[in-house]
């Protein structure tokens, strides 16, 4: 990235036109379903755009009036058959899209209801995250960047129960193609299965105040054996659940792990936000 800004801008514009709308590579079973659904939607969107824009361009090129031509064209007021056609076809199309949508939603719900080998309680607060493994006595907590780590075993269903401590936050991992709000007074559940080991950057996505952009976290997906080692190493190291004041230090020392793939891993922990939550 040492090119001159002008070239970077032109390259960026070309990139924008070429790839507008490309999703990150999904790493969860649920994310793959979303990506497939997105592919179907994009295909239909492209067809609609080609038909509508094609008609519009045809009209513009074909029916230009000549200068000085004072005669009126035929005064057509409508055509009931055409109108029925362009009401009916879109109606059928969207019913199809709705069915596809509901199938994916049902599969999300099935994952929440299915047995989960890992239960995590996630709490969003100004400006950090707390990940509690109630069955294992492990608590991970972090404020600001780089934020806490959420360890999960690869290939297993992980069920998250989430709430917000002060204001509304949102748990968002771009490579999961998924986010959900952490709302005070509400408990939201979702489930996911990570298919590939790796480190995936996450972030808060619901505007939550001055340091909204500085509360990243990382999902670390590791094989089962490594996950069990991590649980054992962190049991008891956790800050007491009774302590509401979040500490600036994550409980676990950073593991030697593969390079992060999410954008937020590159945030440098330079300026730490203040942790005062009272006015």
């Amino acid at each position, binding site marked *: 990235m040492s090119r001159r800004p002008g070239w970077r801008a032109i*390259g*960026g514009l070309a990139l924008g036109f070429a790839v*507008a*709308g*490309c*999703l990150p590579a999904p790493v969860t079973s649920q994310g793959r*379903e*979303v990506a497939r*659904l997105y592919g179907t*939607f994009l295909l239909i*969107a492209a067809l*609609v755009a080609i038909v*509508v824009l094609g*008609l*519009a361009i045809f009209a*513009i090129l074909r*029916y*230009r*009036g000549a200068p000085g*031509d004072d005669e*009126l*064209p035929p005064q*057509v*007021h*409508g*055509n009931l058959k*055409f*109108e029925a056609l*362009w009401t009916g076809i*879109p109606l059928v199309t*969207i019913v199809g*899209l*709705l069915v*596809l*949508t509901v199938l994916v*939603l049902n599969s999300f719900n099935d994952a929440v209801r299915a047995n989960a080998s890992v239960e995590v309680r996630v709490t969003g607060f*100004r400006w950090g995250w707390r990940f509690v493994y109630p069955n294992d006595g492990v608590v991970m907590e972090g404020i600001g960047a780089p934020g806490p780590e959420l360890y999960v075993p690869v290939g297993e269903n992980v069920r998250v129960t989430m709430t917000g401590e*002060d*204001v509304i936050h*949102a748990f968002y991992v*771009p490579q999961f193609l*998924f*986010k959900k*709000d952490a*709302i*005070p*007074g*509400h408990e939201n559940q979702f489930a996911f299965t990570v298919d590939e080991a790796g480190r995936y950057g996450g972030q808060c*996505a*619901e*505007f*939550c*105040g*001055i*340091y*909204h*952009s500085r509360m990243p976290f990382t999902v670390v997906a590791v094989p089962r054996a490594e996950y069990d080692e991590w649980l054992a190493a962190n049991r008891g190291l956790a800050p007491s659940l009774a302590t509401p004041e979040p500490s600036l230090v994550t409980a676990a020392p950073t593991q030697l792990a593969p390079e992060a793939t999410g*954008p937020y891993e*590159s945030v440098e922990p330079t300026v730490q936000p203040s942790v005062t939550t009272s*006015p």
Partner: protein
Amino acid sequence: MTTLTDTPPPVAAAHAPAGAGLDLLGWLATTDHKRIGIMYGIAALGFFLAAGVMALVMRAELAVPGLQLVTEQGYNGLFTIHGTAMMLLFATPMVAAFANYLIPLQVGAADMVYPRLNALSFWLFLFGGLVVLSGFLVASGPADIGWTGYPPNSTLPYSTTTGTDLWIVGLLLTGVASILGALNFVVTIFTRRAPGMSMFRMPVFTWSMLVTSILILYAFPAITAALIMLLLERRFGAEFFNPSAGGDPVLWQHLFWFFGHPEVYIIALPFFGVMGETFPVFSRKPLFGYRAFVLATIFIGAYSMTVWAHHMFTTGAINLPFFSATSFIIAVPTGVKFFNWIFTMIGGKLWFPAPMLWSVGFLFTFLFGGITGVLVASAPLDFQFQDTYFVVAHLHNVLVGGSVFAMWAGITFWFPKFTGRRLNEPLAQAHFWLWTIGFVVTFLPQYQLGAWGMPRRYADYPAAPGWTELNVVSTIGSFCIAASVVVFLVAVVEALRRPRDAGPDPWQANSLEWWADSPPAHHNFRSLPPIRSARPVFDARVAAREAQRGGAEDRP
């Protein structure tokens, strides 16, 4: 019939005292719908310029990672007031501007039914808007809660600035202004139509305003109630949104979006109506499927009350399939309108002065807003796009690519009616091309940024691969948009320095406002043509031509 074919002789506008320069007191005290409309328009454009400058500061800040120009608090204030001002101090009052000026003219009336209420509505809006902006004068800065103002983040422990209270009070005033204005439009349309103008002979802009006004009467009370609740919670100890006292923060989201989604159609339907006026004139044909267009408008209006919770897919507090379904369905009547516009062009004799360029530009840009709208209406896809730049790009694609393109079409179309002068065509076209290029360059990259996962409302972002490049491009585009607005202002000043020479009907148009002088006299009409179709001025023109040719052998 022949008496009706004479165009009325030009006379000095009755309300302009001879020799007076700027009739300041006359404007301040006016109850004339045309003057109120123009004041609405100028005030709305003023708020548009202010909110536009805020957007430029934000785009400059976002060009590269790191904080260069503003603090995080400053940035939060900027996007809050930018969104609020664009939605509620620019787009909504711009609708009122067109409606005030055009409804009485289009239905052949002398004025609105309640002229004083009309004036009250304008002044409430203006001062409400100024109250919102006055947050910049407060030491702790303007509201910092986003234009959606979600509690608990907008309640007192978390948003401590007085600017947030000014935001609430200011929006309460503008909301009441909108309700009063809508009441006036509905009553005027129902009771002041000229003899012969049945409902299905009304111009589609007036039809769109009727539906829009009814929507305002349903939607704005919800936001008014929500704002009062928020004010009570912040300053008077209420606990509506506080879960630890039995309240629920999601209640606000229901109330806000029960207003907020109809609001999108409140600022879209009237401009769809504008498109229903321009395409026929510049295709020299009637609107294809007038009744279908009107029915689609009514359907969209009614249906827009059922889609609000598609803004809340990630809350886990709503029925996802239901709101996905209602949101998908609204694409159907919108699609009907697209085909109405395109088939109005097909078979016509098109010409492309600035208003038609804007109309065609609208067709292209709004299509992408509509299509991406179907994407985000699918709840699982929204789980990825919600609160990212994808949604930012989508909403600007709809509101700018849709409403604002059509607004420029309307301004350039009716400018001769408002002022008696046509805009300089090369300048007006330069405005269009600069704006369109700037618009595409600004918002197209934002789709990709959002798909990658760049969240909105971030003052800063990491230097992930590709992010900086696309943000630089987006920022360059935004300054191109700003340049186009400068060209527009130059064109307006240039036009106003010329004598009035546009004549009553410079575009060979269809509806009654083109029968009146440009600008119309104080009480609009000295005569009216017979109203036997949705295009009375067209009918009169054809009749005149036939009379001139001494027979009907040339009837089209």
